């Protein structure tokens, strides 16, 4: 549904985005993460047709955004991180303006406005002037604007900035429901917890390049050659555990304190079973034992410090 083909953007003698190729199939939520200046916003602006790429193409639902911008726009709902609304309009008038600007059928518009206002919980503000809304409400109205024409593709650049925790949760639910309805979402953020457990796949951008992409599991697995294992136990078995673990050549970075600890294991996940069995047979009363999954945040921090590049 979203296809970016060798996208490149240059400013002066700086390459803001370099050879970005990406395909997001229908119904997926793709999270683009990276530090400020990594090229996330530039990539999304190129995908939305706001910025002409120096090289490469952006295709939305098979339509070349640069060649047929008006046709491509019918599929796209775009929201930027910093935006403003027409303060001198009422909430429903604002949505009505964009519904017409997206050339929705006249008969469909009133019902759709009501529906979208309900989706972003602004029913009580329907007839309020926009200048009187709080920042969070304005952000929600911005989201309502982006979805008013039932876009098949959502391009969201830091959409949660300015939202309180409750509104963030609501945004998450809203995006998930849009995905369930078949929408494809490309979302950028540098607040990684926002994306974890929500995106079906992620891409990590660093200095204009996409350094990793795929499902969260694939990306984290590819980034790490060892498993991190956490265990806890009852009783005073610290010395025994330390001795047992250090006798295994596949174990490293043993870090134990009273009752719990972690270590790194270079074998496969199924090879951990004999390690646990060895501890149990040595009379260690193990209360928990398992792999610690690497979070996107940890992976991102590693990438930022070039540990896995």
């Amino acid at each position, binding site marked *: 549904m979203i296809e970016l083909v060798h996208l490149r953007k240059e400013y002066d003698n700086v390459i803001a*985005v370099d050879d970005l190729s990406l395909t997001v199939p229908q119904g997926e939520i793709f999270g683009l993460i990276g530090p400020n200046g990594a*090229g996330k916003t530039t990539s999304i602006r190129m995908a939305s047709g706001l910025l*002409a790429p*120096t090289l490469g193409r952006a295709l939305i639902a098979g339509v070349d955004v640069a060649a047929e911008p008006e046709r491509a726009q019918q599929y796209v709902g775009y929201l930027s991180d910093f935006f*403003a609304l027409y303060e001198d309009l009422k909430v429903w008038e604002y949505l009505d303006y*964009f519904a017409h600007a997206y050339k929705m059928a006249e008969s469909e518009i009133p019902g759709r406005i009501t529906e979208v206002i309900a989706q972003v919980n602004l029913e009580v503000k329907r007839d309020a002037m926009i200048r009187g809304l709080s920042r969070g409400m304005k952000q929600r109205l911005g989201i309502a604007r982006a979805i008013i024409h039932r876009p098949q593709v959502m391009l969201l650049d830091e959409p949660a900035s300015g939202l309180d925790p409750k509104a963030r949760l609501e945004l998450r639910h809203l995006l998930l429901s849009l995905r369930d309805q078949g929408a494809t979402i490309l979302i950028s953020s540098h607040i990684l917890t926002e994306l974890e457990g929500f995106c079906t796949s992620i891409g990590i951008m660093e200095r204009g390049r996409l350094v990793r992409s795929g499902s969260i599991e694939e990306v984290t697995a590819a980034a790490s050659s060892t498993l991190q294992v956490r265990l806890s136990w009852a009783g005073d078995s610290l010395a025994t555990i330390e001795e047992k673990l250090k006798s295994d050549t596949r174990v490293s970075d043993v870090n134990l304190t009273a009752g719990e600890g972690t270590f790194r294991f270079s074998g496969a996940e199924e090879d951990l079973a004999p390690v646990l069995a060895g501890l149990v047979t040595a009379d260690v009363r193990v209360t928990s034992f398992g792999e610690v999954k690497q979070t996107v945040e940890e992976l991102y921090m590693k990438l930022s410090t070039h540990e896995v590049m």
Partner: protein
Amino acid sequence: MAANFSWANLLWANPEFVRHRRAELRPVRAITVAVVVLFLCALLGLACWSYQQNELATAQRGAEEYATQAWQNRLADVQEHFAQKTWLLFYRWLIGIQGIALTFWTLFSCAQSVSGERDRKTWDFQRTTRLAPVEILTGKLLGEPVLVYFAVLCAAPITFIAGLAGGISFATVTSVFVFLAATSVFLGLGGMWLSTLLESRTRGVGLIGALALYGLTLGAYGMRDGGLPGLAAMSPLLGFIDILGASPGSALYRFPAVLFGHTIPWLLMCVLLCGSFSGWLALMLVRNLKRDYPEIRPLSRWQAVGCAAFLNFLIYALLRPAGMHDTFARQVRQGWFSDASSVAIFAVAMNGLILFLMGLATLTPQERLKVWRRKRTTGESKMFADDGLPWPWLVISGVVAYALMVWGLLAWDHALPLQMHTLQTAALCLLVVLVFVTRDVLFLQWCMLTRLRQPVVKGFMFLCLYYAAAAVIAGLAGVSSTDASYTTLALLTPVRAFDSTRELTFSGNVIAGLVLQSGVIGVILVVISNRLQRPMQSGAAA
């Protein structure tokens, strides 16, 4: 999704127009505006009535005191036509005030339309909608000044009544309104074009730009006695006076508009000239409205050549040779152009300006030029590509300008006999001008590759400084000898080339200047090429 075109969608139901109507004409505000307009109309009506009363009192006093036939006649006239004259005066004031308000407000509000949206960060959302550039353009033209349109609408019934009661025909009153609307569209297009060139809104800049544009448009009025009197029709004031019917002895008819040697009404000339310039403005706006700011390039290369040809064509179409008999004025008029060579000098000088403007309109954004250069080195792109350097297109525009000059001078041969050496010297003179313009345009292109903020504006200022410095140096050289001054001018500026248009002789200094500036062009091309070859760094986005 309904995407069928209709005039209703483009005009009344245009979402952008509807947005402005909703935002600016809320009931309370609309009622307030209507009440204020009616109140002002009433005040104006009273003032006109008072003026006529004063006229009547003066006539009565004169008739009583002097008792002459002239005063008696004047009194009789004022008494007989009191009502009609009052209404006529009222109408003229009403339409004059509406004209000024409508045109200035339209220009001012449109001059802040796009830059204002960029400033408020609402522009990107509009660019991502399915509105076509022509729809945005129409919506903004109608919507930005919607408040003043409404005010004029409120005053319109009173204006009609005043006009009809003042003895003006319904058709004339209607024509005046139509002409006012057309004028406001023309000025609105100019304002919007100014607005697209400003990265962000600064009310001061918008106001100054709008005032300058307004002043230029109205100031064109003074050109009606020049060599190209038709250019005065850029001032809608002439068309306005023409519709209202100026008195036969007025200045308007002493200086008639000339098209291909035939005198035509000023109204027609206004429509032709403002209409064609509106067309060019609309083309530039539609081409660029949805583009990102750094990507804006007013015209494509072929459009620029077309525009240069159009402007050259105007020179010969609007020309009024000296000694031409005006059918309207029934007299032979003197003028600027007494022979073909004076027309050729003027055309070459005008082409200096036209080619420079065309060069400005076709400067290539840095990024596009880099891509063009890369493709050029691999043989994928041509020298005449749309993203290449502007100089080949300046040469084409120069050739077209010369071809039109030949055609124009031959066409005017009956009034201004053409001699062959005029064409030859004009060709050389145009070559000198072309070289200097090419140098200046390439310098601006180089400025665009630097990290200067507002590179074109700053580059233009550097050029102004250069020409000022050249004039000062020539002045200083003139202290020692006139020849030294002339040599300096010939080497650094194109002005000395114009000395030789009456004879086929160019001084060595002019040729030396031509060679020197050609060398400078070569240096600038090398510098541009080096700049385009700088290694790229991957990293933080702009």
